[in-house]
């Protein structure tokens, strides 16, 4: 009985933890940004302002869930669900520790890429369905940006795949016992991080929702929990990318044995989440054409060069 229930427990547990982490990140980001910008941030509700999350949630759940009359209703409702579903699906293939995972897929990495490419639809459809020119522009930008950065997100990971000889994430982690991949695959890491920021459209690559130009872009017309899903989806994306950086480049659950593997995993992921927030605090937003040029003219050649060199070295050694 316990055997058949075990996967279900793990699945529900992971879902719970991940969603709550995303919610907590709202608070964490505000606190950290405040810290770096030399102010207090939310500190009134509860200890260290921790209950602020709860307050926000109550507020967002009780708001009127309004659909504009000019919008394309089914698509408008579908759009925010897509991103949350796509990101949560990706968590399924992550091995959190040697014995905590949802599914051990032998094309795990490809599954992640497939899901992240599904995430595009959320933004694009939201932009289109809102029937609003700013939203449409934001949606188009998002489509072009995410399509472009997906290309070398995939390419940057192929170096890791080559070294591990597998798409299976568990095997990738296992092969990092000797050396974490961020040393040989430093360029792959850089490209993956940049692409990850662009995929989650976090600052500085938040062109699709640039408030100053596009009035929040694709989610201008959204309110209530639908907006909340975009919001949570973004934090889930940050968590997902951080978890993948940990898994692919920093040895996943591996670490000295004085801490259990799951703790190592969470610690590493947390570091990268903070890094993402730090980026938001420190970098300005580029122009749209700069973003695209940077992607195609710098990142893509870098990813290709990394791939060729990695392949050459593997051939030479093996």
């Amino acid at each position, binding site marked *: 009985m316990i055997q058949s229930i075990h996967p279900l427990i793990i699945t529900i547990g992971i879902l719970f933890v991940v969603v709550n982490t995303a919610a907590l990140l709202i608070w964490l980001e505000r606190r950290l940004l405040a810290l770096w910008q030399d102010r207090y941030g939310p500190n009134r509700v509860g200890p260290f302002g921790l209950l602020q999350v709860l307050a926000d949630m109550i507020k967002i759940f009780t708001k009127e869930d309004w659909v504009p009359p000019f919008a394309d209703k089914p698509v408008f409702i579908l759009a925010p669900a897509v991103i949350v579903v796509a990101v949560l699906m990706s968590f399924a293939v992550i091995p959190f520790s040697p014995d905590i995972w949802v599914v051990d897929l032998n094309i795990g990495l*490809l599954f992640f*890429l497939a899901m992240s490419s599904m995430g595009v639809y959320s933004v*694009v*459809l939201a932009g289109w369905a809102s029937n609003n020119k700013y939203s449409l522009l934001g949606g188009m930008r998002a489509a072009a940006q995410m*399509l472009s950065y997906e290309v070398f997100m995939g390419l940057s990971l192929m170096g890791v795949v080559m070294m591990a000889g597998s798409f299976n994430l568990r095997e990738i982690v296992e092969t990092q016992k000797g050396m974490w991949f961020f040393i040989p695959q430093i360029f792959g890491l850089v490209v993956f991080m940049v692409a990850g920021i662009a995929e989650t459209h976090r600052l500085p690559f938040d062109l699709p929702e640039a408030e100053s130009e596009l009035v929040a872009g694709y989610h201008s017309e959204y309110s209530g929990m639908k907006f909340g899903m975009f919001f949570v989806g973004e934090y889930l994306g940050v968590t997902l990318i951080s978890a993948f950086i940990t898994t692919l480049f920093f040895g996943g659950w591996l670490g000295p044995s004085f801490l259990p593997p799951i703790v190592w995993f969470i610690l590493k992921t947390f570091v990268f989440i903070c890094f993402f927030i730090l980026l938001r605090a420190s970098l300005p937003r580029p122009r749209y054409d700069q973003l695209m040029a940077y992607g195609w003219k710098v990142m893509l050649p870098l990813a290709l060069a990394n791939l060729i060199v990695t392949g050459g070295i593997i051939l030479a050694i093996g």
Partner: protein
Amino acid sequence: MTVVFWISAAVTVISTVMVITRRNVVHALLYLIVSLLAMAVIFFSLGAPFVAALEVIVYAGAIMVLFIFVVMMLNLGARASQQERQWLKPRMMIGPAILAAILMIELGYAIFAGGGIEIITGEPVGAKQVGMSLFETYLLGVELASILLLAGLVGAYHLGRRDRSEEEES
């Protein structure tokens, strides 16, 4: 796996029917995406996980986004749907449906005339095998495909460019 196959087959067929009958382009595209995703599940159930992933990444994730991108660029609104209503009359379906029905009957005859039913075991054929096959047996095909992609790239760039005279007008 059998159940998975039949469910996703049903989803595929229904959503494909929706694709060819919708009036709104974006809705049709969404149904097409659903159809492709279901197709990916079929591939997975048939023991082709690598291709299933590619189907999602490339077909659903890239090609369809291109479609949506173009639809957004053209910004087809309610007027386009109205026009579709005009164009898409049920009686126009009759001829093509008959043609397709004949084709189906022929294909069905050809498929089942072979005799015994072969059962697909669904033993997975992994990415490694596909890759080895691609770069050993079908290397020439890979090269040709890359040339085709290059040609497509150049052609699309050339076609998509605005004429100089048009630019002056606008």
